[in-house]
């Protein structure tokens, strides 16, 4: 597997409905290397979400193989998958999925709660990650007291807190305005520049443009897989701010 972070071979997912079966993912074989920033695109029903769920170990494939960081996870189940999600993968969701009435700090600590880390260590690491996303001064705010962009940054800090090998972002800008979207994408680009592998699911081309590789799904298969020169999100952010000021 040399240095491939993610390897899928003929990964297939079939959903059995009453009487008929839907093949959501059809023999998908993809390699993603360490340090890549991959955007997964495709219309609804293309299988991109199913692919995402399988990569995130939230679901098990019907057939095919999936290696993550040299570990064959397609055969694992239950607790072993929970452990992979806990230690290997950081999730960022469209709707942030922060626990309400819980401070930003405690939200970031959440993954560490499930991995035998002492309370002090949890605290220290969560605070450090919050600092990295620029929210150290908001550590004791509740999600309701934070803006959408700030909430998503808390979610990114949470995704990073257990030192994962992969960030999986499912439409991370779906609930944000353009300028905040650029902010979040700039943060993801920074993380990627620091060596973090990022897989992003989106249906917006402008967002996919920030990635260095775009994999497009259609009808459960990979339709195209292109490497591109990513657009600099910070640049776009500056432009957006400039137009905002002149207006």
């Amino acid at each position, binding site marked *: 597997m040399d240095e491939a972070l993610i390897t899928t071979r003929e990964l297939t997912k079939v959903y059995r409905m009453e009487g008929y079966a839907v093949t959501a993912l059809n023999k998908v074989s993809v390699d993603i290397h360490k340090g890549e920033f991959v955007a997964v695109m495709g219309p609804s029903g293309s299988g991109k979400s199913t692919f995402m*769920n399988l990569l*995130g170990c*939230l*679901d098990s494939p019907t057939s095919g193989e999936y290696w993550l960081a040299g570990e064959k996870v397609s055969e694992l189940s*239950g*607790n072993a998958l*929970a*452990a992979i*999600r*806990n*230690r290997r993968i950081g*999730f960022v*969701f469209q709707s942030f*999925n922060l*626990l309400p*009435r*819980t401070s930003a700090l405690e939200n970031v600590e*959440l*993954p560490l*709660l*499930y*991995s035998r880390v002492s*309370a002090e260590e949890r605290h220290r690491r969560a605070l450090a990650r919050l600092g990295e996303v620029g929210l150290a001064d908001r550590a004791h705010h509740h999600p309701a007291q934070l803006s959408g962009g700030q909430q998503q940054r808390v979610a990114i800090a*949470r995704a990073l807190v*257990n030192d994962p090998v992969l960030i999986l972002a499912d439409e991370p800008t779906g609930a944000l305005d353009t300028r905040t979207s650029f902010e979040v994408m700039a943060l993801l680009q920074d993380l990627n520049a620091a060596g973090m592998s990022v897989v992003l699911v989106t249906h917006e081309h402008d967002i996919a443009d920030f990635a260095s590789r775009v994999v497009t799904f259609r009808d459960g298969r990979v339709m195209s897989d292109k490497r591109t020169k990513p657009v600099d999100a910070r640049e776009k952010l500056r432009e957006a701010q400039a137009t905002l000021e002149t207006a």
Partner: protein
Amino acid sequence: MSWLAGIRIALRALRVNKMRSILTMLGIIIGVGAVITMIAIGSGAQAQVEEQIKSLGTNLIIVLPGSVTAGGVRMGAGSRNTLTEDDGYALQREIPNVQAAAPTLRGTGHVVAGGNNWSTVFYGITPEYFEARNWTVATGRGFEAADVNGAAKVALLGETVARSLFGESDPIGQIVRVRKVPMEVIGTLERKGQSLQGQDQDDVILMPITTARNRVLGGSGVKLRTVGSISVKIRDGVDMAQAEAEMRTLLRQRHRLQPAQDDDFTLRNLSEVLGAREESTRIMTLLLAAVASVSLLVGGIGIMNIMLVSVTERTREIGLRMAVGARAKDILSQFLVEAVTLALVGGLCGIVLGVAGSFAIGHFAGWRTDLNANAIVLAVGFAAAVGIFFGFYPARKASRLLPIEALRYE
């Protein structure tokens, strides 16, 4: 995840819906409070009966005169004067198993001392009476053989009588007139409390049997030396039925009864009556506790109900926790801890309610209540068990959710 962290998460989740949590706990609070109060009332009643047994003496047999049968109508125990003082002495003398036999005369009358007066009961007794009835003299002295032989005009006062006639001052050496017969108070009796029938056993005057018969009561009893009853204390460890049989044989002999004739006396074993009474209070305690436990059970159902609602409401939270690495058993224990926390916090409040309730009932209703550490431990243990039992199903339901479905739940 540590238990401590689990409890903290549970407490926070419960604080979010304060009103709901409190209402849910109320079921457990009332249940635990009721169990503790009911057991306190029950064991109070039980202890009271036990004390009465102790004050009576556990091996006491009362001999009462037999009944008169007039034209087929039986008049009931004590309607005929068949029992004499000498029967009492004979029981004492001739049956080794008898520890003390005390022939007793009973009368009622008006007592005057100085400016005070009081209506009460008096007993004419022999010195054996104190041993037979487990009674002692509190102050002053008891009767001696000489007092009985000489029909001395001396009396012992029960606490109630002493208080009614003399208040706080010392009655010893004072003169009381019982049915106009003056006698010297030589002592006061130990407090005995209420009898089984709720009578004040301290509202009594004791005097030598001869004094009662010859000087106070008078009449036909003087010549016949009849008595109202004989209290007989059987020696410890002796079979009561055997002792009763011996007494019956002796009394039949003394009364010259033919084998075909009925007894002209009655033997009453009071400890049996009390034993039955004790058994019935014990059953009452059990019943009360059982009824109270039902409310605890209902409280448990309330917990299950609210936990099911909570699991549904927090499906996305469950999905998120699973996504960041919570295993099924982490989710299971989270919700189980929450249910048990509800039950236990309710249980602790229930203890306070139960203790307060027991005191309130003891204070306002005047019932005796015995708070029982075992009952408290039992009630709270039961509450925790209810939490686990009724929390398990919702918790398992939560732990079985699929992470993707839970995450996407709207």
